[in-house]
């Protein structure tokens, strides 16, 4: 028995060659589908947005401080109130999620025993899997009443409650990705610092944290971009009153919440209101795109070689 001759017998040259030639083409087509889908979405957005700007002047849109599309007599389409609404919620979410997420990441990567980590990390990741609609009614029916006990004059719809809950929603993203970044800092670096007489906290804050900075910043930016795009929580608990001010105890409206309001209402096809959701969607898209670019830039700029 000669193995080489058996291999020779089993060789089906024609078929093999055909498959080898076909597969790259099939794989290319599947790759193309996702690219085309993205291009298609962007084009629809641009096309319909363009239509909107034929009705509403561009500068009235991006510099206007009044968003009153449903006013029958004098509708106005200044997007700044919606952007402010989004920024209020995102800002509060960051204030909640970044300190808590980083603290959790430092605990998990530097202090927790293997057993604790094995239990806590999956639980944290389950939190990331909770549907946002659940977070939404959690904000409206639990967090808001709780906050009203503490903050007198807090309206039923406000920016604080959805802000906090969006923060809780992005917390696992920040904690988990930051923990990954910190855990991948080599052990030898911690040993080097400990051998110089550092305490555990000094090792965590002065060696591990700076070494993992690019991963940590990227996780924060990813969290922010999820907060900006968050829809259900702000629609349920934020209200629908776009306002250009710094008030966070009163009803607001974010870009996403406006799109929901119009999409679920009965704005007729071809009306200015109908086109406005594309313009707002496009604005939102610019924001998240900038965030993604920022994340990419940060991971390059702050990457520590080790």
């Amino acid at each position, binding site marked *: 028995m000669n193995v080489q001759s058996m291999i020779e017998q089993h060789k089906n040259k024609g078929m093999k060659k055909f498959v080898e030639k076909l597969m790259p083409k099939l794989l290319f087509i599947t790759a193309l589908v996702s690219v085309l889908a993205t291009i298609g979405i962007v084009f629809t957005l641009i096309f319909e947005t363009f239509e909107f700007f034929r009705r509403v002047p561009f500068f009235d849109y991006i510099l206007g401080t009044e968003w009153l599309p449903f006013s029958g007599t004098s509708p106005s389409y200044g997007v700044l109130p919606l952007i402010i609404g989004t920024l209020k919620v995102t800002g509060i979410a960051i204030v909640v999620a970044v300190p808590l997420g980083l603290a959790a990441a430092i605990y998990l990567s530097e202090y927790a*025993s293997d057993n604790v980590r094995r239990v806590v990390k999956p639980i944290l990741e389950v939190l990331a899997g909770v549907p946002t609609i659940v977070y939404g009614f959690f904000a409206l029916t639990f967090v808001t009443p709780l906050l009203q006990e503490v903050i007198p004059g807090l309206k039923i719809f406000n920016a604080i409650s959805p802000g906090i809950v969006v923060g809780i929603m992005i917390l696992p993203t920040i904690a988990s990705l930051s923990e990954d970044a910190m855990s991948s800092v080599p052990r*030898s*670096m911690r*040993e*080097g610092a400990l*051998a110089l*007489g550092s305490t555990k906290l000094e090792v965590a804050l002065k060696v591990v944290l700076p*070494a993992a900075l690019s991963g940590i910043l990227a996780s924060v930016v990813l969290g922010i971009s999820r907060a900006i795009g968050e829809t259900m929580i702000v629609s349920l608990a934020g209200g629908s009153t776009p306002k250009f001010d710094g008030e966070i105890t009163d009803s607001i409206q974010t870009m996403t919440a406006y799109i929901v309001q119009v999409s679920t209402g009965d704005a007729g096809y071809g009306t200015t209101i109908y086109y406005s959701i594309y313009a707002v969607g496009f604005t939102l898209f610019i924001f998240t795109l900038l965030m993604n670019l920022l994340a990419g830039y940060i991971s390059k700029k702050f990457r*520590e*070689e080790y």
Partner: protein
Amino acid sequence: MVKKPIVEQAMQEKKKDLKVITPSEKASIYKTENLNLWYGDKHALKDIQLDIKQNEVTAIIGPSGCGKSTYLKTLNRMVELVPSVRTTGEIHYRDRNILDKSYQVEELRTKVGMVFQKPNPFPKSIYDNIAYGPRIHGIKNRKILDEIVERSLRGAAIWDEVKDRLHENAYGLSGGQQQRICIARCLAIEPDVILMDEPTSALDPISTLKVEELVQELKKDYSIIIVTHNMQQAARISDKTAFFLNGEVIEYDETDKIFSNPADQRTEDYVSGRFG
């Protein structure tokens, strides 16, 4: 058998350079008494008795897995990073038992520096690497730090190579340079003892030579304990040598004696290259 002539040659070179000092002249820095250590159920160090002298280079040799690195890491309690570790016995460092739970490890490690097998600079600038130790111990004055950085880098014989690039990342340096940065980082807090865990095993021959020369230079001011796989290195640079086998100290004596006329047959077999 092949190794012996080289070892002898190294010994002769060394005799030319160094005068041999008898043990009685020097004070003890580490006195180890009945040290036993377990990793879980594995008995890694057995009844170690060693008296290590000040301002000498003490080499620890032995085959892989003999406990030599474990012993070294016990001297600054880095061994405690392994969760399952358990010890009995005493190690007196300048007359205080460091295995006593009341002994602060941070305090011990400020006095006892360590250089690792693989260079492990922090992913920071060369300057920040050296200044790290002084900074965490409260030295913030920029001028004083500048001075410490220069002195430490000079002490580690790398100042001339890096003085124009102090603010570049230490990872841009070669392996041998990185290791000398790690030695400089250790010198920056002016420790009493320097532990070296196979410091040249990841380096090329020229870098190895530089580090060896440095060790000779440093022993004027520091007590150095070095674990090495390389017997010629032990013969070249150390005053005393301890031979470890299966977690026990088989022989501990003047380096010259260990390599030329060992008392124990197993030492003889090891240093002549019959096993290990």
